[in-house]
């Protein structure tokens, strides 16, 4: 077990290193000069040079990379070029929107998918199963930003129940903030819920077909008790794995949905930073995004191994 954790930790570190290198290299070759963007078209060459020097852009690439990584290892994310403030503060502000949004979406997605998937599998090819299949097929097929648009059209423009976007901030009360996050969270959740429903359904079906479940049934344990005690806990293992994989979709999808709903989240910050070539901010955000995904999948891997002894030996 320890060996498994250790080897996974090493590959986690290697992956993170690759990611950081990849980000740095991409940004290195990205056309666009942050200084020219900030100073506009009237700026003179000497002014631009002065700003480049101020921003440390005139230093060699390797040095800048090492400084960046060194800073991060010390917990220093650097200073935003455009906002002139610590990236950690910026990110924390935006996390206050993106994190609740993603968590809410994951919650909605899971609450929808688990019961639907299990119910569908419990009576395979029944009416519920067919309805769930249709839902999951449709859910996967619609783009989340389109769901967002249609929600705005229905619930904001026509019915007026929800704000058409924007975020009042947590300091103005939890209720209005949640109200502003609900529609985007549902838009974000639906396609992923559809995927998760299918996974739950097939995982449940697989477990139902397994020997130990048949044995339990043969011993006379009734259907719903078997489902509860044997099937669902075992089906949860692959479901959790998929949920881990979906994390990147939740964060990634947040960029589009935040744009549609005009939410000041991390995705929008990344989008703006890219437009302004605020390289410090982009680097950090991409690293945070990918780091989160990598770490969560690492945890899922470990959890998986603990839950499923067969896998331990494989490492």
């Amino acid at each position: 077990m320890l060996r498994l954790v250790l080897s996974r930790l090493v590959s986690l570190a290697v992956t993170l290193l690759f990611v950081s290198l990849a980000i740095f290299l991409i940004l290195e070759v990205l056309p666009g000069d942050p200084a020219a963007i900030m100073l506009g078209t009237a700026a003179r060459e000497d002014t631009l040079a002065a700003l480049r020097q101020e921003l440390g852009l005139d230093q060699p690439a390797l040095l800048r990379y090492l400084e960046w990584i060194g800073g991060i290892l010390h917990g220093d994310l650097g200073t935003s070029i455009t906002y002139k403030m610590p990236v950690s503060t910026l990110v924390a502000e935006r996390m206050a929107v993106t994190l609740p949004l993603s968590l809410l979406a994951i919650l909605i997605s899971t609450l929808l998918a688990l019961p639907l998937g299990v119910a569908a599998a419990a009576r395979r090819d029944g009416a519920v199963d067919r309805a769930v299949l249709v839902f999951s097929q449709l859910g996967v097929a619609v783009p989340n930003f389109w769901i967002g648009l249609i929600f705005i059209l229905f619930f904001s423009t026509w019915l007026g129940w929800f704000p058409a976007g924007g975020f009042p901030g947590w300091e103005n009360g939890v209720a209005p903030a949640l109200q502003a996050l609900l529609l985007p969270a549902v838009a974000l959740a639906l396609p992923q819920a559809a995927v998760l429903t299918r996974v739950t359904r097939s995982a449940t079906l697989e477990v139902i077909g397994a020997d130990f479940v048949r044995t339990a049934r043969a011993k006379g344990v009734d259907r719903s008790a078997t489902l509860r005690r044997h099937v669902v806990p075992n089906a949860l293992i692959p479901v959790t794995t998929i949920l881990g994989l979906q994390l990147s979709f939740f964060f990634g999808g947040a960029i589009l949905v935040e744009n549609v709903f005009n939410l000041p989240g991390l995705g929008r910050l990344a989008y703006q930073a890219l437009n302004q070539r605020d390289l410090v901010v982009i680097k950090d955000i991409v690293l945070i995004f990918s780091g989160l995904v990598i770490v969560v999948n690492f945890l899922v891997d470990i959890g998986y191994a603990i839950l499923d002894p067969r896998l331990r030996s494989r490492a």
Partner: protein
Amino acid sequence: MSKRFLAAALLLSVSFAPAYAAKTSLVVGMPIEPPGLDPTVAAPVAIREVTWANLYEGLVRIDRNGKVQPLLAKSWEISPDGLTYTFRLQEGVKFHDGTTFDSADVKFAFDRARAPTSTNAQKQIFAPIDAIETPDPQTVVIKLKETSGNFLYYLGWGDAVIVAPETAENNKANPVGTGPFKFKSWTRGDRVELTRNPDYWQKDKIKLDSVTFRFISDAQAQVAALRAGDVDAFPNLGAPELFTEFQKDKRFSAVAGNTEGEIVAGMNNAKKPFDDVRVRRALMHAIDRKALIEGAYSGFGQPIGSFFSPNNPAFVDMTSVIPYDTAKAKALLAEAGYGNGLSITIKSPQMAYASRSAELIAAMLSEVGVDMKIIPTEFPAKWIEEVFKNKDYDVTIVAHTEPLDIDIFARDNYYFNYKNDKFKALIAEAAKTTDEKARYAKYAEAQKILAEDVPALFLFQLPKLGVWNAKLKGMWENSPVPANDVTEVSWTE
């Protein structure tokens, strides 16, 4: 919550006071968030739209009609040779941090802006300055190397506001000026809050206690925020197609004014076929400006035939010089040797006004046998790199939002690659001419040259579509400089 509490508190106090007490807080919506709050070190318009006249003040200011007015300088004299400006400063002015404003601050601010290490985006404002002297705390003498007709006008811009030596370094995140409002807080991605400066030197003129700028980029959300009352005013509504709804709504004032932004499709004048004036004129003839404005901006925006803002007193309408005339366009193209068609490209930024105009222009040009391919080009990063710096383009389209920037056509090495010595001399003369009438006449002549020579396709003036609560008064209808000046704003009840 705090807003409601404030309202409740007001209600309580009001019960003893005369019937109506006017609201004293204002929420202004803006489409783009400023990247920092120091207009003296970066170019973006949004910085000025929050800070200019509200947080920072210059020696002079531009008023809503585009005229120069005294501000921190209560008066000035210009020597007969036009080379020495002597400013008398206001007394009793304090910065927000409590330090006193005097001539040393003016010298510091201008020296900082024109220093070699300065990152001021409009260094040419300070280029004519030879020396700055401060004979006493209330007097500043600025000596120029050469006469400059627009020197005072430029000093009214955000790039020339006065900042204090003690605080200038941190102004980007924590701005300190002499203005009627001081900085309270900035929630990145959402809002900047300003609060009344109790020590303001003309505080009796200011009616508002607090001003909040909220940043809402999506047009639908802007409309929703206005309707819900979350935002009291949107001086530049993002979507013209939604503006008409407010014109019918009595709760709002909806005013279509002008910005300083001329939308032009610049051409690479050094490159074939654009080095041929007949081709440039032909393309201009092929464009139906009215239909373009209708399609790209829902009919708002004034057509322009040259490169000058209608807000400026020296403006002359030049749209009739090369009117929409497809037959003439075809004839000119044939004359230039492109009777069998012409294939060109346009590098178009992603902003809605630009990409929509590019699509419409492409459609119009196809009517005269010109095939124009659209190459979407990321603005600002790639556009600055490819078009502005490397001049690797045929046609491009962008709004030039700086006031009084006709001189860009006289600049060497500017992205139009336009060379016209007569025009260049004229602009240089105009810049030096201190007599107003004579200067306007020169600018009129310059406008005519551009209209006839068509170094860029002159399309329309970017309108300022302002929507605000009908009970608000004192908002700017036009923006002769990029600004959301709220110093004269008040609620009528």
